């Protein structure tokens, strides 16, 4: 099922300078591939760098070091404006907050057509027709075109955000917590819409989320981040059902299952402590201060991602090196 690589990330880092000699390592030496047509889930707790990584892929941030390739082409560093223009059309983003991500002073029609207008994709005659098509495709009504964002509910606004992203006919869509601001009953509507559109438009998704259950169900593969680094990656099934890295195990353990019978029978091994600071991090494994299996080596040598099970499951932990 896995086909060619759409995005290749190699040793990518983003360090934000806070003060002289003080750097926040938001993303640190991340290597990850996104295959064409897949949904890759990127999970981790707040502050782990998952959104920063998403924004680096769409070139909202320029990397501190490392290389980034999109469809085989190196897009690291600053891009010439003509190349950037071409690239931006193929990669679109859906944001978490459907309230702050839509301009309140623009009509829905202008919001959806803004990108195509800038690229001259639609002729004047086509414009209304295309807007109606996308509105109806995301489950809204063509007559909504001349309304303003405040006239819509959160779920409807998220549909407008999806229509805006897809009107550009992108290849890769970065969904940054696209459902976490929505109500439970509406989340499922948006998830099913995203899935239908993926099949229909042959899209590749990077699905950034903190909801482990949702990622397990909707993603093909999942990557787990902790303090700027990927600690485990593999098929969603393997990573959730057979987590290898102690942090992934802790996440799965802490994830509540909506079934009291399961919850009652569960003995939880919870990890203590909280995520440490990403400012000038110490050498060694980032998870070492909270890890129940920590060894001396963990505090001095950073573990690298390596294959831990047959297939594509990889984890970064000294325990798993044989």
């Amino acid at each position: 099922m896995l086909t060619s690589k759409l995005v290749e990330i190699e040793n990518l880092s983003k360090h934000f300078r806070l003060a002289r000699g003080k750097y926040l390592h938001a993303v640190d030496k991340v290597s990850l591939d996104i295959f064409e047509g897949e949904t890759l889930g990127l999970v981790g707790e707040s502050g782990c760098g998952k959104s920063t990584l998403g924004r680096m892929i769409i070139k909202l941030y320029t990397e501190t070091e490392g290389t980034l390739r999109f469809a085989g082409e190196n897009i690291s560093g600053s891009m010439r404006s003509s190349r950037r223009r071409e690239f931006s059309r193929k990669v679109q983003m859906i944001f978490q907050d459907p309230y702050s991500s839509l301009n309140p002073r623009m009509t829905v029609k202008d919001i959806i057509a803004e990108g195509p207008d800038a690229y001259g994709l639609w002729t004047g005659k086509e414009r209304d027709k295309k807007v109606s098509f996308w509105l109806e495709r995301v489950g809204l009504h063509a007559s909504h075109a001349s309304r303003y964002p405040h006239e819509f509910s959160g779920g409807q606004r998220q549909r407008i955000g999806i229509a805006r992203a897809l009107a550009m006919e992108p290849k890769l869509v970065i969904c940054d917590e696209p459902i976490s601001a929505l109500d439970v009953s509406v989340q499922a509507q948006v998830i099913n819409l995203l899935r239908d559109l993926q099949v229909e438009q042959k899209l590749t998704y990077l699905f950034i989320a903190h909801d482990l259950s949702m990622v397990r169900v909707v993603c093909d593969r999942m990557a787990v981040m902790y303090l700027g680094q990927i600690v485990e990656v593999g098929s969603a099934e393997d990573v959730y059902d057979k987590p290898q890295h102690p942090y992934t195990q802790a996440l799965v353990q802490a994830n509540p299952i909506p079934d009291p019978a399961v919850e009652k029978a569960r003995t939880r091994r919870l990890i203590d402590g909280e995520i440490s600071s990403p400012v000038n991090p110490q050498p060694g494994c980032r998870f070492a201060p909270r890890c129940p299996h920590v060894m001396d080596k963990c505090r001095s040598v950073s573990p690298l991602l390596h294959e831990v099970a047959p297939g594509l499951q990889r984890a970064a932990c000294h325990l798993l090196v044989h």
Partner: protein
Amino acid sequence: MNYNDGRKPLLEVRDLAVEFATWGGSVQAVRGVSFEVFPGEILAVVGESGCGKSVTFQTLMGLIPCPPGKVVRGSAKLGGRDLIGLSNREMEKIRGKDLGMIFQDPLTSLNPTMTVGNQIGEVIRKHRNASSAEARKETLELLRLVQIPEPESRIDQYPHQFSGGMRQRIMIAIALACRPQVLIADEPTTALDVTIQGQILELLKKLQREINMAVVLITHDLGVVAAVADRVAVMYAGEIVETGSAEEIFARPSHPYTVGLQHAIPNPLRPDRGAIKPIPGSPPDLFSPPAGCSFAARCPSAMDVCTSFGPPAFAVERKNSADTGKRYSACWLHHQAAPTSLREVVTHAHV
């Protein structure tokens, strides 16, 4: 579970209705809710945003500004005393002492200019007339109770020096300072990461067991409910649509909305992609709620009666006879005249 076997409820709310006056008309946020909280139980109140779950409990705590808020009708008896209509001064004696509350966002709920020790101690001094020295001693004990490491040095720090999970522990310590009979926890883990959420939920469970306090957990997260709740009340559009033990609600939901909610959330143990089924449409506008059942417009088994008459709370049979909690469902499908073919939608949805 015989948590309320013949016991009297601590808190008994009957037909509570709350409205808010706005420029656009009045919003009927809570539309006649009735429920009990029994000693030592964890009652989860589940519902989506705007369903009235927070307003219900803020009303009980006297935290709704009136106007624009207004209690239209109903009573809320805590130990025989009606909380509705109490003056602010009378309410102050109850708030914090008999009823404690913690909120979703611990940073905005704490005073940034006071040390956490003073914020916890304030409650003890105020409600118990304790001296500063006594209050400090008690505060240290509370910090230990909520498992804050190194309480002796942490007591003199300010909220910004604590992480989100630690701040929520401080909030819990403040709420517990006077050993309330009922602790109302309004989305206590929503702002926290999942590993920290696990720690806070375990703490709440431990406290509820150790000091035999009743906890009302207001949440939208069915996973959290499954993890800690004894009993569940499901709210929709300002009403309680179903109540019962957590086991019953999950294994045999008896209201189409509860069934819909359960199908709408992912279960990682049943990771079939087609398993997520959304509830079509959106909740009704509470400026002018529908005449009949508020869920009728989204309900797959709606009947003619549903759109014109609001359903009463029908008693639902419990499968587990050891389970003594009351089980109600506000759905016409439980009326004896409802066609069995439609009734199966609820009764067999989860078998």
